[in-house]
């Protein structure tokens, strides 16, 4: 494993979890590819994401009991594992979002004060 991969994961951890939860909360049940496609769609600039890097986040969230996966058929009649956000996932999402907003607000205040 290269250290570059590790670095990117570390950077995305936390944010990635939040993004996945948010996606599932707004869009309903999604498979991994669906989540990845949605992320590319939403991103302002081309979001360079190896789709494989989603998996650690999915495992983590599932083990924490925040999302739940189950095998279903897609419209094109393929097997896919669909993830659904759970109740504790919903609670975690609002908790984490609030924390992020506070952090972002703090950073904003800090940067405006420094630039002025």
């Amino acid at each position, binding site marked *: 494993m290269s250290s570059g991969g590790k670095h990117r994961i570390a950077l995305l951890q936390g944010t990635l979890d939040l993004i996945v939860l948010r996606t599932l909360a707004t869009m309903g049940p999604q498979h991994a590819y669906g989540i990845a496609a949605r992320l590319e769609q939403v991103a302002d600039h081309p979001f360079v994401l190896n*789709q*494989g890097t989603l998996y*650690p986040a999915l495992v983590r969230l599932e083990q*924490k009991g925040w999302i739940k996966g189950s095998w279903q058929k897609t419209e094109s009649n393929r097997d896919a*594992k669909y993830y659904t956000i759970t109740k504790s996932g919903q609670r975690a999402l609002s908790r984490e979002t609030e924390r992020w907003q506070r952090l972002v607000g703090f950073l904003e205040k800090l940067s405006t004060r420094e630039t002025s």
Partner: protein
Amino acid sequence: MSSLRRFFLRIAAFFRPGPAERDMDREVSSHLALMEDEFRRRGMTPEEARVMARREFGGVEQAKEFHREERSLPFLDRLRQDTRYTFRTLRKNPGFALVAVLTLALGIGGTTLLFSVVNGVLLHPLPYPDQDRIVDLMHQAPGVGIRSLASGPAIYFGYRDNNTVFEAVGHWHDRGGEVTVTGRGDPETARSVEVTHEVLPVLGASPVLGRSFQSVDDLPETAPTVVVSYGFWQRRFDGAIDVLTQTLSVNGVPRQIIGVLPESFRFFEYPVDIFMPHKLRRSEEGFPSFSGRSIARLKKGVTLEEANRDGARIIRMLAEQFRVKRFGGVELEKAGLGPNFRLLKERVVGDLRSTLWILMTTVAMLLLLACANVSNLVLARSQTRRHEFAIRAAIGAGRGSIARLLLTESVLIGLAGGVVGLALAYWTLQVLLSAAGADLPDIMNVTIDGRVTLFALALSVLSALILSMLPMLHLPTANLAAGVQRGGRSITDGRESNRGRHALMVAQLALAFTLLTGSGLMLRTFDALRQVDPGFREPERVQTFQLTIPPALVADSEQVVRIQDAILDRIAAVPGVISVALVANDDGLPMDNNGRTGGYYVDGRPSTEGFLPWMEVQVISPKFFETLQTPLVTGRSFEWADIYGRRSVVLVSESVARKEWGSTEAALGKRIALRPTGPWLEIVGVMGDVHHNGLTEPAPPVMAFPLLGYPSSGTAFFVVRSSRAGTAVFLRDLQNAVWSLNRELSLGKIQTLGEMYQRSMARTFMTLLILAISGSTALLLGLIGIYGVVSYVVTQRHREIGIRLALGGRYGEVLWMFVRHALLLAGIGVAIGLVAAIALTRLMRSQLFGITPLDPLTYATVGVVLVATTALASYLPARRAATTNPVEVLQVG
């Protein structure tokens, strides 16, 4: 909460990776398939779509690896990988694995075994609560050479009523010894003790049923009571609750049962079943008189010194009260009579402590030796694996991962060694315990318990660390990249690696020398003991047992003797009995660690004031010495007419006769007496000396009286010579012979004289056994070590040898080169071992008999054996080197 849940899931995923792995594979391929569908929809060919999907997805294996890391516990996963790898490599090299595990198992097993003994004997010596506060109230009188005096009733009263340091003081006496219990079922002989009411509480015993003794039970006028052991209650009353309403007849005296002690309670090392109140009448007790023992429980925070000071004050007070001015023939002040209180656990453990520590040190050395040997093996192996490590490093393995591999290997070997060692220890313990027999007091429970198991586990981890340390230290100096290039094709190896190996070898030989010297000394001791003539022959064919005729049954002493006479006749009629006799009282047998002495006067010789010569006293029936086959040196032995005719006759032992009258013949017809005024007793015979107090002690002077010629109780030890001795059938015949005369009598303290003889050597034998086992194991390990190192060096210097031979070197020279080297190392090892042995064997002094710790023969023999076996162990591989074909070597090289 959610992170806890995740932690457990990760552990679950570690142990059952299968389902999650399959689920992941399925999910990833479905993901790729969905992407391919999408790209095809956008108009790509299937081929392009597959490539594109892979690119968008990123590294598939990498993603799976991330998945695994998140899902499971990566550290454990890697450990599992390393373990699997190590198993594979060890399986490929089973010789190495086997030798390493067995070597370690020997070391760990031995150390664990000894630890279990130390654990049982030194760390938990007594099953009593607060044992650090229980004091054995011993006394001394150094001024007259008396180191150890017990206690006495007057002293007990003095301490009980005047001390400021004890919570409670009690007094006990086992003068009753074995008693005959009747009243329910067959009469039975049981061990009894008399205790004042404080004794059981001091030992922390509270009855499971009924009550313990109270002060009122100690009063002579209170009705007799008894407390019984749990085992006795179960055995004789089947554990019935109504036992408290019953009476028990002890030596013919009915006693009310008032309590049953807990199952775990032990009265010191004695298997006591019957506890009776020790009824003392203060007005009848004198000072100084020593009979029985006192024990006490210290108040919290009081030291032993403070207690001794307080005791000394009370002894002075008693001396004043009883107007005692002299003791042991000198002024009281000079005699120095005073307390010598000791913690009870010190007394019970006694000099076993030094033995055990010596053994423990010995075996710890053995473990070190085993570790040294295995690390030498590991070291040699890691040398040959240099090439492998170099390749691993070249393809990107960090130093850490190679070290991890070495550590895993060491831990695996260590744990395997630990498990096998524990099994070995468990098995050996069974053997040793049966060999040691009654030598270890039975309150000491030597078992492999949780603590011992933990100890063994710690040992294996420790040895694993030691094992992996050496090759790991070695790792940084090994130039990994150079290793690849040379591929092990160096002509000579670096000197620094050989220096470590040589140091190990020297250490091993030094340890082996020390251990072998220890076992050599024990072997010589054992041999010296075997050479000692105990004073009797074929003791294994002499059955002994105790039989008490209770005073309540027969009070008159002549009547007692007539019954004993009749019993002897009945026993003589039992098939297979060659000869039978008895010795009165419960302390007359040789080697029973017991006995009584009496001072004597020689007719026509004035006695020196203050010093009376003494002899051991035996009160015997006819044929006693004939039955033991103690030789009658001159004169005659007793006959029944001496007894019933109350003749004033006596026998003395050979050493007394020589000391007092110059020769055995001269002693015949001479007279001695127990009091200066007589009655005078004529010496009618002289018998051989008997080692009454064990083989290591000199044979004491003995005078033997005929029954009725000296006061004795209704208790006696019977000795029966027969080739059937020791068999259960024979014992039943003996019991039936006794019962045919009186149904109330029963046999007790059944053993053969041979067992007593063996027991007197048991400790020596056990020490010898353990030292011999560890010594020979050490030698074996050392030799394997030498053989291994020389073989290794030979392989390593293969090319050099080839070149030497090609240049005209002689076979003998090459051979000698290796042997000389090994001998040099052996020489250094012996020199170091000699110093260590001289220091360590001094600790063994108390264990030795007939030789000094510096016994030259032992040292010389061990030295020669060590050097000779070293020569042999190095000669074998060296010969292989010397017969190398130089052409072959140089061609391949």
